[in-house]
């Protein structure tokens, strides 16, 4: 009986650790997920199968690994020569159109994370991520430490840092030769926060973060028009500053509305020295309908201001150092409608099906469907 009571307490302490730190949910499983993502106007389509596994090594270690393959096809909008106006590629005459530019791409990405639990149940997460495409490679290392500040493990603080090394092939549109050259960028991400159990049915997490990007940050596939309607007009690759410093704060709150329904809200504020500010509020409700079925709905709202070197007008740019017409740097807002259903066949096997619809004020609409299977062992 005493043994059973101890076991229950250990389980609940583990549960607390999960809530207070938002750490890795400690369990052994393998899961496969499939994502199908489609944009309107025959833009980007992505098919992405993924594999993920988590394994506890004793009580002090957990290792988690995942892999995803993205098969990307479609088109992305950029300034292009208007074929109807007589302009040819890389021509300095004729007219230009903001239209879709077709492409295909494949991306393989994976990550490994080791969780180490210490005697006081503090946790250290160390990770390695990689991502590889035909013209882009990224490798990243990360570490994060989570420390409980009280005996009941109701409060924890965490601090983490990651550093990524990126290499890309940059095509200069105006070079005329189609040649590319290797460019580099790197990113430093520092994050610190506090998690607090508020009562027996709600918890809060507050985190601050800063991100410093350095190197070649230009999108080599995006063009701008300079000196339009002059003798010196030209279509060239956009140019962005080679440094970007961002900071922000993230607040998460989760509570149980009744025995079977939870509500989670996440607010993020972001700002950077390109003059982009954004606000994100993300809401999710999960309803456990019975022992097997859990239903979820969610709504996310996002709004951002435009970068100080962005303009969509082809008559705008002349000889400015920095210039971009990439609509992702424009001011817009976006809504995401989310729904999901989970079916738990038994204690080991569960299935999930999710659908999302994303709509930007730029005119971009996208749908996302996920289908997954998880096996616990």
């Amino acid at each position, binding site marked *: 009986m005493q043994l059973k009571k101890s076991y229950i307490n250990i389980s609940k*302490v583990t549960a607390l650790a999960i809530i207070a730190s938002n750490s890795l949910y400690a369990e052994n499983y393998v899961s496969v997920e499939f994502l199908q993502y489609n944009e309107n106007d025959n833009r980007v389509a992505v098919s992405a199968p993924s594999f993920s596994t988590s394994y506890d090594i004793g009580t002090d270690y957990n290792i988690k690994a995942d892999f995803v393959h993205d098969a990307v096809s479609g088109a992305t909008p950029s300034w292009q020569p208007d074929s109807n106006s007589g302009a040819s590629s890389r021509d300095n005459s004729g007219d230009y159109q903001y239209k879709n530019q077709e492409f295909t791409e494949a991306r393989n990405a994976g990550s490994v994370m080791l969780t180490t639990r210490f005697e006081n149940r503090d946790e250290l997460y160390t990770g390695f991520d990689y991502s590889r495409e035909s013209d882009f490679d*990224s490798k990243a290392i990360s570490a994060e430490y989570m420390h409980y500040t009280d005996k009941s493990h109701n409060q924890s603080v965490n601090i983490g840092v*990651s550093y990524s090394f990126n290499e890309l092939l940059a095509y200069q549109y105006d070079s005329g030769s189609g040649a590319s050259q290797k460019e580099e960028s790197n990113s430093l991400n520092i994050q610190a926060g506090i998690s607090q159990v508020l009562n027996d049915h709600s918890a809060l997490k507050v985190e601050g973060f800063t991100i410093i990007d350095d190197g070649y940050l230009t999108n080599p596939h995006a063009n701008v028009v300079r000196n339009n309607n002059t003798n010196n007009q030209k279509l060239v690759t956009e140019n962005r500053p080679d440094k970007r410093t961002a900071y922000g704060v993230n607040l998460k709150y989760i509570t149980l509305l009744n025995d079977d329904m939870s509500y989670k809200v996440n607010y993020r504020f972001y700002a950077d020295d390109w003059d*982009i500010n954004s606000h994100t509020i993300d809401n999710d409700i999960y309803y456990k309908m019975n022992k097997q079925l859990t239903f979820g709905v969610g709504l996310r709202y996002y709004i951002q201001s435009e970068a100080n070197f962005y303009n969509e007008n082809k008559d705008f740019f002349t000889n400015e150092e920095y210039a971009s017409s990439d609509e992702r740097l424009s001011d817009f807002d976006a809504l995401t409608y989310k729904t999901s259903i*989970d079916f738990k066949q038994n204690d080991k096997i569960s299935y999930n099906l999710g659908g999302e619809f994303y709509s930007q004020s730029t005119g971009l609409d996208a749908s996302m469907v996920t289908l997954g299977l998880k096996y616990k062992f």
Partner: protein
Amino acid sequence: MIKVLLLALSVSLFMGCSLVKEVKPWEKETLAKPIMQFGGLHPEVTKFESHVYFSKEASRGGSGVAGGGCGCN
């Protein structure tokens, strides 16, 4: 930046002063439910979502330090 941090600190202190109730380990059954995880029911799906937003929006961060770059942005 300082204003935002002060606001976050104030909220934390306010919570600490008035809304926090000590919860004993045996009172945490509710908090252990799968529907009570900050990362959602399926972290893998959350990772998909984050990647989509990363590729279509100009801001990022706040969801952990792990993760690498991508040519999509």
